[in-house]
């Protein structure tokens, strides 16, 4: 019952778990770069062996980082039925190739569709774990700074990378604030009898109407906060697109170069398998 109102429980993005593991200490941009190339590589792996190997690497990273595995997977929980449905569709409706293992009317499970489904599931788990390890071991502002640094070459193409990074920072900065705000609105409407009379799950109009008392106030609060924030930023001398210095300076050390080398090595290895 209590869990119904604890929204922070479900928000693992934007949370940081303090720690001093090797993963915590690697330069954020290096971490992000490694995570990206690993994700891209894993996305193209199609056989069992390579995927198994990838999962082992990812689990190794989780172990190194000291992040509880259950907690990093808890971000999946709200979507778990949706994912199951998708996987089931993939299993039953993929083109029939290889040996057919089971069939009923127009439904077929072949070795090909089984492989496709298994690798999809493994990939998904890999992605979630990699992203969690990255976000849970990296402070949110380091995340955005890392994005900024990795994308900084795009500046030459007139992409406003600093502005985008600031937008990201502010978005992440307000995730917990809005979660708490939403929690308060939910509790308040529940106290006024909201959610006591339940419309059928399939009565979409009634369901949407029932959400209105939650969504509308949050929307208004967000607008007002945004207005306040703009005034506060302007007061502190912020002018969009004006030249700004950066307080944080980063210098790569040996550990970071080793990390990059290992990441690239693993990716090449995976592709070769």
């Amino acid at each position, binding site marked *: 019952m209590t869990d119904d109102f604890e929204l922070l429980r479900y928000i693992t993005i934007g949370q940081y778990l303090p720690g001093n593991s090797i993963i915590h200490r690697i330069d954020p941009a290096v971490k992000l770069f490694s995570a990206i190339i690993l994700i891209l590589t894993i996305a193209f792996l199609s056989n069992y062996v390579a995927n198994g190997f990838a999962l082992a690497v990812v689990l190794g990273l989780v172990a190194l980082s000291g992040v509880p595995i259950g907690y990093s997977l808890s971000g999946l929980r709200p979507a778990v039925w949706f994912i199951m449905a998708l996987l089931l569709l993939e299993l039953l409706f993929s083109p029939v190739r290889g040996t057919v293992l089971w069939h009923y009317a127009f439904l077929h499970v072949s070795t090909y569709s089984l492989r496709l489904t298994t690798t999809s599931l493994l990939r998904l788990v890999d992605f979630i774990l990699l992203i969690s390890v990255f976000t849970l071991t990296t*402070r949110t*502002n380091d995340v955005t700074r890392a994005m900024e640094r990795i994308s900084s070459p795009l500046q030459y193409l007139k992409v406003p990378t600093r502005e985008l990074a600031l937008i990201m920072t502010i978005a992440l*900065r307000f995730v917990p604030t809005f979660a708490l705000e939403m929690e308060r609105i939910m509790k308040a409407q529940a106290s006024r009898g909201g959610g006591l009379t339940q419309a059928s799950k399939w009565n979409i109009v009634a369901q949407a109407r029932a959400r209105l008392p939650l969504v509308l106030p949050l929307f208004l609060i967000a607008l007002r906060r945004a207005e306040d*924030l703009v*005034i506060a930023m302007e007061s502190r001398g912020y002018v969009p697109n004006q030249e*700004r210095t950066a*307080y944080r300076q980063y210098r790569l050390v040996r550990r970071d170069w080793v990390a990059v080398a290992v990441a690239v090595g693993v990716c090449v290895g995976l592709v070769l398998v």
Partner: protein
Amino acid sequence: MIEDYYQTRSGNQVDDIIAVDHLTFSYVEGTPVLHDVSLAVPQGSYVALLGANGSGKSTLARHFNGILLPNAGVVRVDGIDTRDDANMMAVKRRVGMVFQHPDNQIVATTVEDDVAFGLENFNLPPDYIAERVTIALEQTGLLPFRTRPPHLLSGGQKQRLAIAGTLAMDQPILVLDEATSMLDAIGRREVLSLVRQLHNAGTTIIAVTHHMDEVLEADYVIVLHQGSVVMTGTPREVFRHNQRLHEFNLDVPLISQVAGLLHETVPSVPSEATDIEEVVMAVLDGLQPGPDALDDGRDSGHRKAEPCISVCDLAHEYLGGTPLAHMGLVHADVTILEGEALAIVGATGSGKSTVMQHLNGIYRPQSGTVIAVGVDLAQPTADIPKVRREVGMLFQNAEDQLFEQLVGDDVSYGPLQLKLPLKEVRQRVRYGLNMVGLDFETFTDRPIYALSGGEKRRVALAGVLALKPRVLVLDEPTAGLDPASAQDLFQRLHRLRDEGVSVVFVTHNLEEVLDLADRVVIMQNAETQGSYPVEELIRDPDILTQHGFEVPPILALQQRLRQQGYAVHGRTPRAVVASLLQSVTILSAEEPSGGVR
């Protein structure tokens, strides 16, 4: 680069660091928010800008750093006209702003990055920024929280962070726009002492407020009413005009109220006194303590009332089972009696909101028991709808939770959820609005956006009352309201209590406790520290000190007077003065002793 930055700091040596000359401003043409305002702020002074909600004080504050520009008239900051585009950054460079809502002015995701934000905007070299950030964090006592994300700071710490941002930029002017109004007593003390420290170091302070005790910190007060300056002077001079301030929906500090009332009977008491000792001295001079006429049989609270909610040995852990788990409540015992007004007081993080949210089953007990209106909330089969119906709960900033366009529709949300017949719903809406003093016929079809902040909060309360609760629970019901709206709200609560509704309110303001509560539960470090009848606190304010509270001035005054042999006992200035005058002989100095007029 740094030299340039510093040159812009003190280019012009002017006496009045801010000068406003015939300023007129309107957001929408034809309805001026500020009307022909002229004022001057001398360098290094501490000015309080006082006004009720809607008086235009925040709008005026936003002219001081060029966020808003005058429609007519001139605003000069350190001699620079704010309308001069070329000098925009020079104005921002000089004026630091701290706003009301702590959360809405923090940009970065860690404390140190946020302090650096302003300096980055002025394009200063990273080494220099790092140096300034450290100095600012040291001076504001935030150094230990350097890498903490802002949502894990207390309200007081967040505001100190905002001040650290201006300190890092070494700004000569600091404007506080109701910067303490969302803070608890401890947070306010933190911020005020920091501001005092800055003022002593030479910073010019402009504090926009409607807190009278904060006004006492200032050298000079400017009172704003409906967009015009209506009074100016030292705090003493301003507080002398009790009656006029009341017309402006403002209040005077309770000590000044006592002094003013005493002055009516004993003219030798200065009506503008703001200090406890000053009142005590005047009383010593003018009044002779008489035999103790205090009838101790006034304890009328001997109605044998039944408990309607009892909380026993309750504990609560937040985010249990995750790495972020923490105990929100270690131990709580609370009993709420039928028909009483109970206050739960404590600092932020003392667990008072956690206890509160157990009272109507928002949270279910993880350990310990909560029995609310006869329902054991620990049972999985507990009748939660009944509890929600009978224990009404008003959350903080309740006006934020309104979602319909029209007042009547929003108030009817609860009754409609109960599936009551439409006629009954209408009746309930009428009852709810009536109880908060809003006329049904005039208000039910009024759009919510057209209401004032105080009215919106009353509509939210009406929405809870429309469920006809037996117990009403309120979390910080007056936070963010101006004194007039807050007083009005408390009058409604008095009436509800008189009609037999138990009223439970969570607050950090002890003056509100004195206003309404029969009993008070004190919370500290996530534990209840026992409950006390309010009458006992009046007799022995040291109980408050023992629990880390500052004794409210009105109780401190009574304690001082009792030490001098006067029999005095009361919750309000009026009651205090009445009890004092009952037991004394008025010494006739040169004044004719007219007795009680």
